[in-house]
């Protein structure tokens, strides 16, 4: 009988550095700082760490981080591919390691100088020698160098088919900015955003404009995973992993899944939804709040449909009703998200999911939050997790 992941593992600690536009330190320093902060949050020593997981895009290798923080001997180390699609995947791998006894204290981390260092969309130069670079050559040759240019192809088709307006995208951006106004960590803290400002913002990749894009951030976030049983005796209220999965589907490409019959949906996110709900024994009606991956505003609306909060084409209606706001049906990215808190590749959205379960988010809704849904990158091989109260 295989081990089922439901209620086996929990998040016992979250840690983060300051979020800035110029950290002034190395990515390894950011990684080490956030890993230590996650251990402090859990009340554990760094010497108890026996597993580390990160993203293939992360420049700080597991053993470098282990040496920097004085971790113990490592029995599990791994990296997950596909940019922000790795976020929940790191937790999935940690939960599997914990549930199967491969490790007992696994820290997942993502640390990046995403503004002052290597920014997204700088293009590729040199010899094209990997399958990944061959893939990108079909797009970059034509000037599609930034992630927004790839997502815009999908967003435009989706908006055209279902009558989603620029104002609808603006509602997502403004809802998340309103959340960020309560969050001192957030880039958007103290910076109110109006619909007039939104509509007047600089066009970048039609139909996407400046405020449809996430931040570029220097910072690190770490998530400490251990067994649910052990987490119960640690410093913070555990956020129990009810279900967690990775997901990639037929015709999957890395942000350019342009060759499927239909561009106006997210099959990999629908797969993540099916699997994570089945594992948890829950459905959309059981989810009290969410942190849906938000590199772009359009992705949030599409995911409302993928995760079954409404039917196809009706995501815009939920947004118009204020469902994503703090008093709404599904308060979403209550820290401001990647758009208005920081872009730490989705790891900061997982940290917010944990806060919502603990009940100590700056954007804590005025209701019982029993279950929170968090997703990874959109349009890429991805994943989803449901966190629950112990």
């Amino acid at each position: 009988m295989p081990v089922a992941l439901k209620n086996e593992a929990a998040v016992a600690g979250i840690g983060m550095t300051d979020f800035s536009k110029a950290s002034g330190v190395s990515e390894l320093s950011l990684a080490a700082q956030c890993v230590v902060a996650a251990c402090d949050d859990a009340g554990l020593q760094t010497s108890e760490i026996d597993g580390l997981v990160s993203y293939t895009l992360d420049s700080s290798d597991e053993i470098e981080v282990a040496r920097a923080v004085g971790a113990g001997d490592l029995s599990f180390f791994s990296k997950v591919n596909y940019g922000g699609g790795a976020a929940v995947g790191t937790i999935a791998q940690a939960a599997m390691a914990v549930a199967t006894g491969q490790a007992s204290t696994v820290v997942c981390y993502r640390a990046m100088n995403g503004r002052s260092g290597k920014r997204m969309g700088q293009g590729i130069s040199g010899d094209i020698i990997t399958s990944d670079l061959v893939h990108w050559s079909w797009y970059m040759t034509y000037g599609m160098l930034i992630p927004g240019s790839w997502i815009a192809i999908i967003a435009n088709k989706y908006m055209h088919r279902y009558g989603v307006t620029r104002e609808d995208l603006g509602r997502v951006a403004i809802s998340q900015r309103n959340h960020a106004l309560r969050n001192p960590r957030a880039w958007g803290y103290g910076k109110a955003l109006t619909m007039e400002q939104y509509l007047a913002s600089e066009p970048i990749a039609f139909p996407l404009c400046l405020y449809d894009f996430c931040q570029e951030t220097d910072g690190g976030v770490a998530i400490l995973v251990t067994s649910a049983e052990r987490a119960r005796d640690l410093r913070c209220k555990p956020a129990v992993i009810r279900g967690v999965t990775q997901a990639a589907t037929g015709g999957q490409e890395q942000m350019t899944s342009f060759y499927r019959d239909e561009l106006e949906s997210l099959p990999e996110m629908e797969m993540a939804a099916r699997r994570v709900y089945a594992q948890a024994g829950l459905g959309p009606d059981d989810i009290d709040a969410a942190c849906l991956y938000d590199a772009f505003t359009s992705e949030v609306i599409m995911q409302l449909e993928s995760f079954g909060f409404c039917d196809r084409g009706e995501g815009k209606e939920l947004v118009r009703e204020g469902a994503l706001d703090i008093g709404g049906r599904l308060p979403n990215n209550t820290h401001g998200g990647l758009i208005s808190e920081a872009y730490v590749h989705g790891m900061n959205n997982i940290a917010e999911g944990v806060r919502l379960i603990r009940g100590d988010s700056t954007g804590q809704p005025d209701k019982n939050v029993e279950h929170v849904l968090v997703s990874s990158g959109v349009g890429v091989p991805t994943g989803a997790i449901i966190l629950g109260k112990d």
Partner: protein
Amino acid sequence: MANKDKLGIQRCTDCKALRHPPRPMCGECRSLEWDAVEASGNGTICSYTVLTHPRFPGYDYPLIIVLVDLAEGTRLTSQLVNCTPEEVDFELPVVMTIQQDADGFKLPVFQLAERA
């Protein structure tokens, strides 16, 4: 095939399935044998975007990027030339043309069929 002023589509020699972007194995029948068929160059706009920022050297902005449904059944991303951002729309018929840059590098691009 662009250097011969043609647009090629990869085809499995065994089951004849077309595929793009090119890959070494056919996902339908696992064959490693493939050739290329010449595309008619006719298609319609499946989706598009207009890029205005940031402006990378070597490209003309606003840059219209189209995802084309080729008549043969595969899709291809390319550039729409000889067209303004106000004129581009879904479903419009387009025709391929070969564009050569200052270095002699040839690329298949598209223009509106009514203009070709």
